[in-house]
């Protein structure tokens, strides 16, 4: 059985729980319910040669990065960094959280999601910024937990990265 622990990381209210709910249960709710502590979900991703069970750790979002409990990430083989595309400051939060994890547990496969792509009139991340991150080697997806756009693609990509 191929089972991999994946951690969802990012600032508060960027959509980590909504992305997991969309990916695992195909549902979305407009209501914001903050996560305290951690909740775990599982989803199998099938490839022609194997099936990977992703154990998704939906961690509490962070307001103050200092309060982040890096111990939750122990045993993780991949990270999903989530940014709210309408709140530019959440990019720095996601990148800092990843640095904290890698300092503790070493480098691991990682994808970067710019979420809430449906909110086009409030979108605050420029294409130039995204291109620059791509050039620095980031695997980037513009996702919408509301519409489901690119959500499966993103998780599938990470599954193939951690299954290698």
């Amino acid at each position, binding site marked *: *059985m191929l*089972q*991999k*622990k994946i951690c969802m990381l990012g600032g*508060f*209210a960027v959509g980590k729980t909504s992305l997991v709910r969309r990916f695992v249960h195909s549902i979305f709710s407009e209501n*914001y*319910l*903050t996560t*305290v*502590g*951690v*909740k*775990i979900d*599982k989803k199998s991703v099938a490839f022609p040669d194997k099936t990977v069970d992703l*154990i998704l*750790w939906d961690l*509490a*979002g962070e*307001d103050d990065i200092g309060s982040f*409990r890096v*111990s*939750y990430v*122990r*045993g*993780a*083989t991949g990270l999903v960094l989530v940014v709210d595309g*309408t*709140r530019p400051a959440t990019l720095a939060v996601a990148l800092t959280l990843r640095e904290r994890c890698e300092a503790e547990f070493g480098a691991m496969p990682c994808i970067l999601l710019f979420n809430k792509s449906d909110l086009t009139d*409030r979108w*605050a991340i420029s294409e130039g910024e995204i291109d620059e991150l791509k050039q620095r080697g980031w695997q980037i997806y513009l996702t919408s937990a509301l519409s489901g756009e690119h959500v499966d693609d993103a998780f599938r990509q990470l599954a193939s990265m951690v299954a290698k």
Partner: protein
Amino acid sequence: MSSLPEEVRSWIYDFFSNERFAAYLKIDARQCIEAKGGKLDFYGLSSLRIGEPVAEQLEFMEGLLPCPELPFHMPMMELPGGHVADLHFFGEGDSVWLLFLDATPERDHQQRLQQKAYEMTLLQERERQLNAKLQSTNEALRESQEGLSREFRRAESLLLNILPASIAERLKADEQIADSHAEVSVLFADIVGFTERARSVGATTTLAILNYFFRAADLLSEQHGCEKIKTIGDCVMAVAGLPVARSDHAQALANYALELREAARRERFAGEPLSLRIGIHSGPIVAGVIGKRRFVYDLWGDTVNLAARIQKAAEPDEIRISDATHELLGPDFACDPLGETELRGTGRVRMWRLRG
């Protein structure tokens, strides 16, 4: 300090275990469940099988063992049954003890507080964003308003250049304008030998001369309370007694004519002083605006036609006036009689030369 009696310690243990729904697993070195106990059914975990790998039965255990730092604490893990547990890992030889303590009320309480705090923060962030957007929208609005009122002022000043101010006001109020004026004086003035001289000096110089002449006509009309109505080629048409009636319209226009002639003489055109032919007549006219998009304020009537004919009959540098105008001027102006002259379409007309 002496320790508590065994009975008390046991009571505290029981109280705490009950209160926090304590449950535990013992996991062996192969990461299989070796033993289990406590209130596992509270967490929906009563079916865990002894002797089988823990990570296959408890997904959150994936990757956690072996754990190099024991004891290890992981707070507020929501379990599939919906209850929330604080997880504590303790080492004992090659084995690990995993203790579950209920943290559901604590998590729920913390969630309510956190929810309020984050919602507040989100609202503040959103308010800041909206304010910034509002500000930039306002800025843009103000700029386009300024542009618009600049355009409006420009249009208004253009309108005032073509029309008397009171007429422009009425036109803006969408009034139809056709007014009869019983008593006005009408003047025509053109440049002597304009066509030939224009040919000899070229377009640029000619334009400069026309500009000088028309500007003088404009300036003097302001000074004398007359209105320059229009220019036709090198000819200026002006009126006094419009749009506000005045009894001294003939005098005003006579003074205007005298100064216009002086102003012309100060300028040279093709080597010679600029000289004018001026004609004035007084009487009733109709004044109005014709056209809708390219409106023109103009005068109509026999008085206008006769004034034009008198002007055409005038000698160079002469200000020729009709008998009617002469009567109105009275004794303050020096005039020479010219006798009766035949004018085209009018018949014989008595005219005067205004000297000063």
